[in-house]
């Protein structure tokens, strides 16, 4: 794949490369960060942090934003950005929890959430790919209007879900071999995202469009159609995330998904996806999400307040990007 700009991996990685798994140095540094965090958690609150229920919680809490981040990784890899993810999650969750939708039970809620997510993604995609709008502006407009619509639908009220089949997915009885169903969905989306990005034509086109759109066009890729599909994919992920959030919070509220856009972008960036496009890593993004979720968990276990958590989050973003720049430079030379 000549259009990609892979980081040169050390020679000993060749066996892994043959298997198609590139142990990216960036992912290794993130795994290091995660290992440090787990050690800190284990040392400060050994009984609570390493409890099975807590590990289940960390993964559950990573699931909703994790699914959004997988979609965001594709968009950023293609050189775009999706600022509307949080608002789409909000709109999908309130639409799926209106009394009318709840009448159709589990299927009604799931279908509505996904349909609204895909619909919003389609609007984003058409505006960007065929309307010639800059992704930043188009998705900013979607952010504003989707939140407005969510507020209008709920009238500011919290829509409580009464469909037991949905709520039951969030309780321990539903865990499969100790794994919460939400985490299974997250894992499935991650696996699908990894395959799609690394093993399909769609993935190669995404990287190509992000690396050099003109070259991609000359190579025969329908750049506009590709862009359209990428925003639909991001919208789809938002729809799935909205459903997970409904299971988790048992309700739809117009404030749902608040600031997801920033969390998802941050996770993708510290995971090693280039903001300028042309390189994306699903594994890195998921590690980025896990780093943030683990920090939040450790801080809460140690009863540190949210202001401290915010500062630490900022510091981690800076540190992770600095480490990556250094390791990228080292491995490129």
């Amino acid at each position, binding site marked *: 794949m000549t259009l990609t700009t892979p980081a040169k991996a050390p020679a000993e990685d060749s066996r892994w490369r043959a298997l198609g798994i590139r142990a990216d140095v960036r992912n290794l540094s993130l795994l290091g960060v995660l290992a440090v965090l787990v050690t800190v958690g284990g040392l400060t609150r050994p009984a*609570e942090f390493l409890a099975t229920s807590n590990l289940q*919680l960390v993964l559950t809490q990573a699931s909703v934003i994790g699914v959004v981040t997988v979609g965001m990784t594709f968009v950023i890899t293609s050189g775009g950005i999706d600022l509307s993810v949080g608002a789409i999650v909000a709109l999908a969750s309130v639409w799926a929890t209106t009394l009318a939708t709840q009448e159709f039970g589990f299927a009604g809620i799931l279908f509505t959430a996904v349909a609204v997510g895909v619909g919003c993604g389609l609007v984003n995609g058409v505006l960007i790919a065929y309307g010639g709008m800059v992704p930043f502006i188009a998705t900013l407009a979607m952010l504003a209007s989707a939140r407005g619509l969510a507020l209008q639908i709920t009238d500011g009220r919290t829509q409580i879900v009464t469909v037991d089949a949905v709520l039951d997915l969030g*309780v321990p009885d539903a865990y499969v071999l100790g794994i919460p169903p939400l985490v299974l969905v997250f894992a499935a989306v991650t696996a699908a995202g990894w395959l799609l990005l690394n093993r399909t034509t769609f993935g190669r086109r995404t990287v190509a469009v992000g690396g050099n759109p003109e070259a991609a066009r000359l190579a025969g890729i329908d750049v506009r159609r590709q862009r359209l599909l990428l925003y639909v994919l991001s919208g789809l992920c938002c729809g799935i995330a909205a459903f997970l959030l409904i299971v988790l919070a048992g*309700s739809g509220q*117009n*404030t749902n998904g608040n600031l997801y856009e920033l969390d998802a972008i941050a996770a993708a960036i510290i995971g090693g996806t280039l903001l300028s496009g042309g390189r994306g890593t699903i594994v890195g993004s998921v590690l980025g999400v896990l780093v943030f979720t683990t920090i939040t968990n450790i801080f809460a276990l140690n009863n540190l307040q949210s202001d401290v958590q915010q500062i630490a989050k900022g510091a981690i973003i800076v540190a992770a990007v600095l480490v990556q720049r250094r390791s990228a430079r080292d491995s490129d030379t």
Partner: protein
Amino acid sequence: MPETSRRHLLLGGAAVSAGALLTACTSNEPKNQTPAAGSAPAPGTDDKPGTPVTIGFAGPQADHGWLNAINDNAQQRAKKYADVTLEITEGSNETAAQIGQVQTLINKKVDVLVILPADGKALTQVGLQAMNAGIPVVNLDRVFASPQAYRCWIGGDNYGMGLNAGRFIGEQLKDKPNATVIELAGMDSLELTRQRTQGFDDALKNYPNIRKVARQAADFTVESGQAKMAQLLQAQPKFDALWNHDDDQGVGALRAIAQAGRKDFLMVGGAGAKSAMDAIKADDGVLKATVLYPPTMAASAIDLARALAQKKGIGGMAELEIPASITLYSAVVTKDNVDEYLPTGFS
């Protein structure tokens, strides 16, 4: 003569205070009382039509249940009076937009203004403008920076919420040695959250056997309530009571508690949402009480605005003028009194 006006004062007072709690409640008092003679201003306000009044109402965007209930309360209350016209602006959380809306109401020359500022400090100047233009301002809940900017302030008591939540929990746990409590606070960037926590801590000082072992701040949303409560439950495998600042985030907190399968503590909520009151009435979970921050204050603000325009005082009080400030009481709603408060619950 003194007899008549005294009686009138008391009856009017009963009508106003009965109405103040229940929005839909209409007065049972006989309507044939003759007002104090002549055209002199009546000392106390009542339901009887008086001088026509136009009240301008400007509030923030109703982006959650409580603010929505505030708007409903103001509108329903205004409808109740034949002599009141309500000019309501579209809610906005943007300072500049809200200032513009209040200025429009000033230009329309409304008789009185009721303003619930999205940000009290930022709206102070426009409050002053209205007062200087001769339009009395009823400042609802979020207080202006200067007392010159309003004629009357009415609002909730955040410190009192914390205090009463702490007292209720204290009384429940006073005989339990080494009892522990945790707090799920609201948004830490808001002063009101700190006031609620301060009240709570002060109340707990009266119970040396109780210790607060953890506090996490959420964002007043269901999502944040669920996420932070799930963390707290992991962090504290055992505790006796939980105070949650807000019933909206309480919906999420209760989900987290159900998901963790915990029942070993009592929970007190805040604000007075209908869902919380229903749960208290059903008495089948950890939620045993909620401390009120009643949205009926908006209905009372309309009463006060009308009284101001008609130059009346509050019935039932000796004063000829309405007071400069009224702080509501943060009542604790429990299974015993929930039926009384259910009609005020918002969703």
